[in-house]
């Protein structure tokens, strides 16, 4: 069997330990993106290292490895993939040390579909990928 991969669609990895948030993000983005979903940041890291996506959409607070720790671990291995962080914490952005980083976007929870798609489009455009909003 031949599996066709549509290279024109940006490829995203979504990470959230909460299956409801994961499923909502997938539904909001799947029309225009190839989406892979993970509930565990370590599992996502291995997947990203094996097959690098165009961007990662990640929760911050997760048991085991946080979203910020995931990004730091990838950066340390030389993988500089753009991130959209989802957070229900008003102070997370200020404490993250990512201010001014064009490869990082933030979106407060609960997610708004238009805002999520806009953030993803923006970060992909920074990275030279176009996307539909």
């Amino acid at each position, binding site marked *: 069997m031949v599996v066709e991969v549509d290279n024109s669609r940006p490829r995203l990895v979504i990470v959230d*330990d*909460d*299956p*409801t*948030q994961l*499923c*909502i993000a997938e*539904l*909001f983005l799947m029309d225009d993106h190839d989406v892979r979903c993970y509930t565990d940041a370590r599992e996502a890291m291995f997947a990203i290292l094996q097959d690098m996506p165009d961007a990662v959409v990640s929760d911050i*607070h*997760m*048991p*085991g*490895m*946080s979203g910020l*720790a995931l990004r*730091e*671990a990838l950066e340390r291995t030389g993988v500089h993939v753009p991130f959209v962080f989802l957070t*229900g*914490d008003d102070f997370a952005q200020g404490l993250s040390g990512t201010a001014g980083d064009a490869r990082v976007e933030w979106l407060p*929870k*609960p*997610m708004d*579909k238009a805002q999520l798609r806009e953030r993803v489009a923006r970060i992909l455009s920074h990275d030279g990928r176009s996307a539909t909003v």
Partner: protein
Amino acid sequence: MLTLPRKPSHFEKSPRALNREKTVSNQIDDEFDPASEWQSMKGELVCRATLQKLEAETSHQALTRLLGIFRMEVHKRAGIIHEACSSRDAERLQVCVHALKSSAQSFGCMPLATACMQLETLCGHENPDRIYEARDALLMLIDNTLAALDVVEREREHGR
């Protein structure tokens, strides 16, 4: 190995907390009373407008599936809240109610989200007794919210 920094657990610190589950005190030493505060919010446990927006952004079938996942997740989180309190694990409790807060907001369960936010804040509080008060009220609110979701889901089916 990368892990989240271990926060000090107030459950572990306080001998009073260790006896809390055996000794029920009626005295609340602060003006905040979660049970009565959340009682007053029960007018609308589930915001239908939020669910209608989510349905418009996805589909009727997708929302049905999402509500099923949410329901399972709420049950699972309630179990974790019990376990975290039994093992005096404030960090686990905090992570759990933080996640539940976000889900509850997504499905328009605002009293539940508020209760989670308050319990999340209390996890860093000096007095662990208040955590147990808030936990009991939150678990009661979870039951009531799930019952309210039953009603909403029946309405959705009949309105279909």
